């Protein structure tokens, strides 16, 4: 595995700076009707970040309301709508599409060495499906909002008088298909568009992660689609499949819902793990430790994710036998997660670590994911879960995993590939400070909630016992700290867009293919399929005083190519 990229002259086409994907064509329609995966990725990213802002505002409103028991700023009904919206927006509009659809769309084909995804039109179509789903979600607000919780548990969701339930379910249905088509596109792209030399085990781990994610997207999402369909039919035509008073079964709904929504957790976290594998390896300038274990652990997580859904229902009335089986299988997910964490940590060993902004996010991820993952053990264990189920302990756990890990991974990835996407650098110091503020704010917010939950505070509570107030106040202060960190982070990006330093093609010394083309990449990525080597071989990097970073040394690279040629002959 000492192969490295054989640079072809046309790949390093410097004239492409004049003709990158941003300037290739101009005008609104050239974006709205684009089939270029990079532009679609950028559009997704903007839309996802806008949704993240909206979801974040709801989060802050929730935390503010919870400063005092009883009414602080809004009524109970409004609060119920807020947490439902916060959940639905963050899950369906932000985290699920954030890494696969936004970053993945931009990076996957370039990293793979392809010119585009396999079905560019389908790709654009799934973006517009996302827009459609988002519009329906917005419309549901106009139609009276919805207060069902993002889980839409029956019979509450079929009987609540809020008028926005059907629109939002339609939105979720549409968003589901957006996600399915993205996954389908990625699977076919990885299978069929790998250029010569890009064997499965030369693929960067981010691609393995996206591939595993795509499998989940394709195989789990249809069940959500039919479930929300049934819910819509139940609400409009009253067919009674989930209605206990008509012989239906509300627990069946929960099975259907979690059959999708548990794998969906891995749609969120697995690609973030892929990003972290890239970030840790590139910024430590060191071969990733245990490549195959990490690659297979992604696939293992994807497989296990389909058979553990029942652990969301330990107290829902499913049989004790089912609970036992689901508890046992749930522990199996711990193993691949543990493997990844240890391997990332070992990758730091004897590395050459640059503490850049992406690396800071990478290290935050390891910290937060370790907490999020380990507290999963409390919840997979049957008797402790009975106490912790539906308390703030669960809220804290899944925020550590979904936000502290998946979203931090996404933001880290955005910092990692930002120079590639925009062609601009950002203020590194400010970005690092933003990362630290977010990290501190996050822990203050959510670690408190672990205590809150294990002390017995149920989730989705508008009003609470006075003894819980101190925890809530600390948590709310943490949320404000975190929000300020995100604003600083956003300011960094805006400053970068307006007046950032021009980015070199390879600012971090990365070895995967996306660092071979210019920043921003040309319209066609690669004019001919590139040949590929070991994307985790950093031996040809040297310190460059002018760039204040690691760059590829041509002589060392030539030595490596010669060594590779000998190895092959």
């Amino acid at each position, binding site marked *: 595995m000492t192969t490295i990229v054989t640079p072809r002259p046309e790949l390093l086409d410097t004239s492409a700076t004049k003709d990158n994907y941003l300037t*290739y064509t101009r005008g609104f329609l050239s974006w709205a009707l684009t089939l270029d995966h990079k532009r679609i990725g950028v559009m997704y990213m903007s839309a996802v970040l806008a949704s993240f802002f909206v979801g974040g505002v709801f989060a802050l409103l929730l935390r503010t309301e919870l400063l005092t028991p009883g009414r602080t700023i809004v009524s109970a009904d409004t609060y119920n709508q807020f947490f439902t919206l916060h959940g639905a927006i963050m899950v369906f509009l932000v985290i699920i599409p954030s890494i696969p659809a936004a970053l993945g769309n931009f990076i996957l084909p370039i990293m793979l060495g392809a010119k585009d995804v396999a079905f560019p039109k389908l790709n654009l179509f799934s973006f517009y499906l996302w827009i459609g789903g988002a519009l329906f979600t917005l419309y549901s607000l106009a139609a009276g909002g919805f207060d069902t919780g993002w889980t839409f548990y029956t019979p509450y969701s079929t009987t609540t008088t809020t008028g926005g339930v059907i629109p939002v379910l339609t939105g979720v249905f549409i968003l589901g298909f957006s996600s399915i088509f993205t996954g389908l596109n990625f699977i076919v792209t990885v299978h069929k568009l790998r250029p010569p030399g890009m064997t499965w085990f030369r693929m960067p781990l981010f691609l393995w992660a996206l591939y595993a994610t795509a499998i989940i997207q394709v195989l789990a999402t*249809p*069940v959500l*689609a039919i479930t929300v369909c049934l819910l819509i039919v139940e609400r409009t035509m009253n067919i009674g499949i989930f209605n206990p008073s008509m012989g239906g079964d509300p627990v069946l709904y929960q099975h259907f819902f979690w059959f999708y929504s548990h794998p969906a957790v891995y749609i969120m976290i697995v690609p973030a793990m892929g990003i972290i594998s890239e970030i840790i390896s590139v910024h430590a300038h060191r071969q990733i430790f245990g490549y195959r274990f990490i690659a297979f652990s992604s696939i293992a997580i994807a497989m296990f994710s389909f058979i553990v859904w029942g652990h969301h229902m330990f107290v829902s009335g499913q049989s004790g036998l089912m609970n036992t089986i689901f508890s046992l299988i749930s522990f199996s997910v711990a193993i691949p997660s543990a493997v990844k964490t240890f391997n990332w940590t070992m990758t730091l060993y004897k590395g050459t670590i640059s503490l850049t902004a992406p690396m800071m996010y990478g290290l935050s991820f390891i910290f937060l994911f370790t907490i999020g993952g380990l507290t999963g053990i409390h919840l997979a264990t049957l008797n402790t879960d009975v106490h912790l189920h539906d308390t703030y302990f669960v809220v804290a756990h899944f925020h550590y995993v979904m936000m502290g890990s998946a979203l931090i991974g996404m933001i880290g990835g955005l910092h990692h590939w930002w120079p590639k996407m925009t062609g601009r650098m950002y203020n590194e110091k400010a970005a690092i400070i933003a990362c630290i503020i977010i990290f501190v704010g996050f822990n203050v917010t959510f670690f408190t909630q672990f205590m809150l939950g294990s002390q017995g505070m149920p989730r989705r509570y508008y009003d609470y016992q006075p003894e819980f107030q101190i925890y809530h106040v600390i948590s709310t202060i943490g949320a404000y700290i975190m929000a300020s960190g995100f604003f600083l982070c956003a300011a960094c990006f805006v400053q970068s867009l307006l007046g950032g330093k021009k980015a070199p093609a390879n600012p971090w010394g990365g070895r995967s293919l996306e660092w071979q083309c210019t920043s921003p990449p040309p319209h*066609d990525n690669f004019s001919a399929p590139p040949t590929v080597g070991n994307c985790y071989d950093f031996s040809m990097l040297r310190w460059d005083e002018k760039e204040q970073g690691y760059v590829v040394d041509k002589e060392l690279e030539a030595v490596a190519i010669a060594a590779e040629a000998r190895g092959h002959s």
Partner: protein
Amino acid sequence: MSSASVDHEVRVGHEGHADGHGHGSAEHEKYPFLAHHFETPAQQFDSAKLGMWLFLATEVLFFGALFVAYAVLRSRFPEVFSYGSHYLDTVMGGINTCVLILSSLTMALGVYFAQRGKRIALLICLWLTMAGAAGFLVIKYFEYSHKIHENLVWGPGFYIPPHDAMGEAESVALAHAPAPAPAVVPAPLNSAPSGVPMIGAHPAVDASVVKPASMGPLGLGAGAVNHASAVTHDIIPDQLPSAHLEDAKMPPNTHVFFAIYYAMTGLHGFHVIVGMVVIGMLIYRATRGDFGPNYFTPVDLVGLYWHVVDLVWIFLFPLFYLIH
């Protein structure tokens, strides 16, 4: 974007790339339908085929959830399912099964002819498939309308005789009914009153299941059924087309059978309609002469889709019509 590339785009259909870029490799010049990001027609075809298989996997899972719901409900109410299937017309269902299998055959032949560039034979096959799909829907329409006429419908309507069978007073009462009103069910202290009260001899809930304790806000469902109980009392039995309501052997919760029947066959029917649309598009393009030995991907893909739609019916037919 040049007009030439727009033209290119129209002709290549699904796999085209509007931003067609001028890297005129030999393969791309030879095969105008080859999208810019593929190297060879074989790669493009394989990609499309894999994509279609994945899509069909999602379709199978889409229906799969409903099959699971069927299994769960069937295990809960076995007597309902064996009773309900008597109301389905096995002859019509059987004819429909044959029609669909035949249309699958013509579709497969269509792919065969497309690969060999036989345009007329392909067109005949596509039209025959289209006719099969339409025939299926027509028969399904008769089945549905017959059942709806007999009031074999989903939900609480199952227990409400159709409007025209009611006396004038009742219809007026129905039209001016206030918001769902819980019925008065004599309930002993300490036992839960039922959300769905008895309707004649046919309680709508399984007596073996604990009766839901609700008389309160159960939404439309309970309300409508309750209301039904208020109006069905005075109806003269022999005016009813709802023969099932008079059948003393009808098990409780029979509406569940029809709910899942309409859900599954309805979703399948929707897929047949989608199939007709895409076959129509194929007919349009085949008439134009798009397909030949080099390029028949769309025909192949629609063929796969159609077989899956067929296959789903092959499962639906015995599950609903044949198993007593």
